[in-house]
């Protein structure tokens, strides 16, 4: 019901977490083959001839959590640099090769991984493999590219965060939730850090993380698996294996009571954010929290929507969602207060709904609704080749089990009303909560 333009802005906020939105596989079983090359590159192939296209993707197990705290934004910045060229691909040619062949290309970076993809006409599979192998083997990173992309990334940050309504929401929230773990900064990072990074640091980063043993090559579409395997050998076999990647093992300590703060800005309506730490994705409790959030905000009839938005009309929108992350993540309950409504009124209503879930298990009818919703999402997800390639890579990278694309739904379906109630009590714990108000700066308030 809220204004579609605003909704678009809100969705943008979600983008950085959306990279690992619960991809549920689908009712139609997705067959795939997977194997490792000698250099450690993991390969996943899915054959589907319905449309003559192929998605060629490479996922590197490097994200912002792997960054030096004094060089935040490096992983994402590096993603930009890796479109600059290679020993055999001149500056700008990545784009023209792919688009000139009738394809699209892009990449994105999250806290945990960096993902590159091309979707090409299926007769251009080899082109995609050549490009990705060039990127992995000997990308060329030069002064002009670094300088250009530094400015481009700064514009990306301004466009997505600094100049967006509530653009500081996620950076400020993550900064408040995490004090030790590198999730405390977001993938876009710091402009000052990027300015300070030297050429040598870029090359070190490349040698450390852009190695076949830290990557998944995932291909889906109109391919012949046997022929594809030969081409993969041809282009990737000789890429030297890199050193084993060492990862951060920082554990975020429990906090000693709720943390509350106000962030002042220019946006007119108050935004309320409640953030709670949750277990890592893939754990049983993670799925229980997912179902809990579905009770709170899955659809117009969900509890926060019904109570806070529709009945009490306290908010323009209100909901809850989790950032599933490789390390223990965070779940957010949020509300944009209606004009003239005080943020604490909204907060109180949100808490009341959560408290009700702590006291009373959901009914069999409500459980059935959740399961129907999950099933529907599961069927409708993974309908594109690019989406399937990405999900397969994700499932392998995080869980070592790409077949979750077909079976993850069982994890959701196994969640009981008692699990949901327990998750509400365990994880929507006020003593572990971070509550932030985003308010409009008034003359009398600190600038």
């Amino acid at each position, binding site marked *: 019901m809220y204004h579609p333009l605003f909704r678009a802005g809100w969705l943008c906020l979600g983008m950085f977490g959306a990279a690992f939105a619960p991809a549920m596989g689908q009712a139609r079983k997705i067959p795939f083959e997977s194997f490792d090359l000698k250099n450690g590159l993991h390969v996943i192939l899915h054959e589907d001839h319905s449309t003559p296209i192929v998605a060629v993707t490479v996922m590197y197990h490097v994200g912002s959590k792997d960054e030096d705290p004094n060089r935040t934004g490096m992983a994402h910045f590096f993603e930009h640099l890796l479109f600059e060229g290679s020993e055999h691909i001149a500056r700008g040619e990545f784009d023209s090769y792919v688009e000139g062949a009738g394809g699209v290309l892009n990449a994105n970076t999250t806290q945990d991984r960096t993902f590159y993809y091309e979707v090409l006409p299926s007769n251009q599979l*080899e082109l995609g493999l050549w490009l990705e*192998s060039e990127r992995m083997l000997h990308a060329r990173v030069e002064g002009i590219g670094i300088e250009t992309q530094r400015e481009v990334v700064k*514009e990306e940050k301004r466009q997505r965060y600094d100049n967006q309504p509530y653009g500081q929401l996620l950076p400020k929230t993550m900064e408040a939730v995490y004090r030790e773990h590198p999730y405390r900064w977001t993938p876009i990072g710091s402009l000052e850090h990027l300015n300070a990074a030297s050429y040598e640091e870029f090359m070190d980063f490349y040698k450390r993380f852009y190695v076949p043993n830290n990557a998944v090559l995932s291909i889906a579409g109109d391919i012949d698996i046997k022929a594809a395997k030969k081409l993969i050998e041809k282009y990737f076999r000789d890429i030297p294996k890199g050193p084993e990647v060492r990862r951060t093992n920082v554990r975020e300590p429990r906090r000693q009571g709720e943390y509350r703060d106000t962030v002042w800005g*220019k946006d007119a309506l108050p935004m309320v954010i409640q953030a709670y730490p949750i277990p890592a994705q893939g754990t049983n409790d993670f799925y229980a929290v997912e179902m809990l959030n579905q009770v709170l905000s899955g659809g117009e009839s969900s509890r926060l929507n019904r109570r806070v938005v529709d009945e009490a009309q306290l908010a*323009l929108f209100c909901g809850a969602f989790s950032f599933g992350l490789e390390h223990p993540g965070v779940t957010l309950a949020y509300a944009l207060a209606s004009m003239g409504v005080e943020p604490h009124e909204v907060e109180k209503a949100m808490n009341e709904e959560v408290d009700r879930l702590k006291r009373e298990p959901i009914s069999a009818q409500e459980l059935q609704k959740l399961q129907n919703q999950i099933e529907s999402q599961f*069927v409708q997800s993974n309908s594109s*080749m690019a989406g399937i390639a990405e999900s397969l890579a994700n499932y392998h990278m995080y869980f070592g089990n790409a077949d979750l694309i077909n079976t993850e739904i069982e994890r959701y379906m196994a969640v009981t009303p008692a699990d949901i109630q327990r998750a509400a009590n365990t994880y929507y714990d006020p003593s572990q909560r971070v509550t932030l108000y985003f308010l409009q700066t008034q003359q009398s308030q600190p600038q």
Partner: protein
Amino acid sequence: MNSVFSKSSHPFRVWACVAVGWLITSSAALHAQVDRSKAPAAGPAPTIAIGDYHLEKLPNGLTLIVVENHRLPRVSWDLNLDLVPLKEGAKAGYVRFAGSLLGTGTETRTKAQIDESIDFIGGQLRTSSQGIFASSLTRHTDALLEVMSDVLLHPTFSEAELEKLRTQALSGLASNATDPGAISSNLRARVLFGEDHPYGEVETPQTLKAIVREDLVGYHHTYFRPNVAYLVVVGDITPQLAREKALRYFGAWQPAEVPVNFVPMIGMQRGNQVCFADLPGAVQSNIAIAHVVQLKPGEPDAIAVSVMNNILGGGGFSGRLMQNLRESKAFTYGARSSLSPDRTLGRFVASANVRNEVTDSAVVEFLAEIQRITREKVTSSELQTTIQYMTGSFARSLEDPETVAAFALNIERNKLPKDYYKTYLQKLAAVTVEDIQRVAASYLRPEALFITVVGNRQEVADGLARFAQNGRVQYFDALGRPISGLEPAPEGLTAQSVVERHYEATGGIAKWRKVTGLHRSGKVEMGVPMQLQIAEWTLYGKGTRTEITFEGQVMMEEVITPTAGSTTAQGMKRATSAEDLADKQESLDPLFHLTAIANGKSYDLKGIDKQGERPMYVVEVREAGSAEGTLPESTLYFDVATGELTRTTAVRVGPTGPLQSEESYASYQTFGGMRFPTLVTTVANSQALTITYDHLEVNPKLDASRVTLQSQKP
């Protein structure tokens, strides 16, 4: 173990051992058969097949389109109304409200019940002013259609839900006030299409507050009719079953005559304009450079136009705007353009978000790219790359069965040939470099652009004035409504005192009252190679005569008196229209503006315009009693330092929309103790006319019959 490797390496084994020393320096060269130095060749091109669709008209006039696809066990039902855009006027937003409220209550279901039924089956239901979309897993089809049909046929539009929606919409406006994208979209709508066109309407708190329940009921009753609707069904269902369901759930829907709304034409503007909306504290400028385009979907040029736009700024990263503004200059995260055909009126928009410091430089690059593509041929490799890219996009789009449904709907709605999409790739491949140049020149208007910018006024606005033909930045609020952009005038100063200062500065009010008449003459330039002369004789209060001559021959003469006027040109005499007469009678009174104020006309001092070289007082003139915010009939600019009237602008609503005219007055000189401008330029209807007076005489000896009308002979 790898057959390719062992086969080719065998004959060269000895050589390979010898050469291993230098081969090792390049790991890629270890296998001689991998030539990394150039891109691999493509395999044979795959066939691109477009799925079929089923189409039929049901007895109540509803057109059913079915795209059968059993890949996934789901079906979507998309009901689309085929309507001419509607002008909402003072209630802008009511059409959207009608669409939103449709899903919030029926005669037998509350909003909560509707929401619960849809969520329970994990389905989707979205209503809008243009139709209803619903989807679910196949096995829930009946439960879904039950609700969809009820929402369509028996909505209640309750007052309570209307108030709820209104409150949310008002909050939405408040939250959009800091969103550069939302502001830019409002601004573009207003300046491109104007307030008389449906596309130029923007919701404001006033319009939202004016909406009443009857507006929504009326909209639904009038426009939600099967005879203007398409029901597009996609997914796991046969045409037969879809037909049965459509009859069962939508068969009782009654047809009725649906009005075809009149959409006014828009006058073509000339000259680039700069339109700015301030977003204090912004760290980027949202630039959108736009104009309207007369191009309907499926017209013969549409494909070539689309290729042209792709070369300029469409598609992915290869477009010229992206390569120039991002990859070469690093001004932005992305720069793109779109050229959207539309059955009513299309638009061209080129846009980017850029940091404040490079705002003007970015506009320079945009303008250069738009001009370049209209003036120079694109290269054939650029054209081929783009055609390839678009061919690929077309193929990729077919991955989604909804695409075939969208094709079907386009064919039907736009009356395209049935094979339009089946032959699309052939038509695309046939586009030539010459076609691109032709369509760029005929559809892009680099001399008639609205350069809209949402950003930090303090930091960037001044640098943009040079892009406007009139040298000025025009200011708008977050909802695209014009604001003055002026600095406040000193406390206590009024329009009347500014006008009095003007007359004092040009001779004195007392002396002006004693002036009886004026004769002046000079030469006229109007962009044609003809030396025209102008001469005027005026007796204040009695009449004025103007003659335009060419080589001594009178081409046109005009006489205006306090009661009537006439123009004679090429032997034809014509009475002056009442509207023109009122304007022209201004010259019969040397103290015209003071008289008008005394007569109750509304003169408003809006502030000081500091954009030009010299600061100007800005005074707006309206009919007595005009509402605040209505367009002024004219605007006067008085030099703050000298008191001279330097410019007047006026807006007249003509048959083709509002026409703006502008007169400027310069080179004031003293004649008989009074000061007069000797250089007067008039711009109207995109034509400019300049008069340079070289002779001026105050209180001339004049026979009154020279300046009054002789009685007309029968």
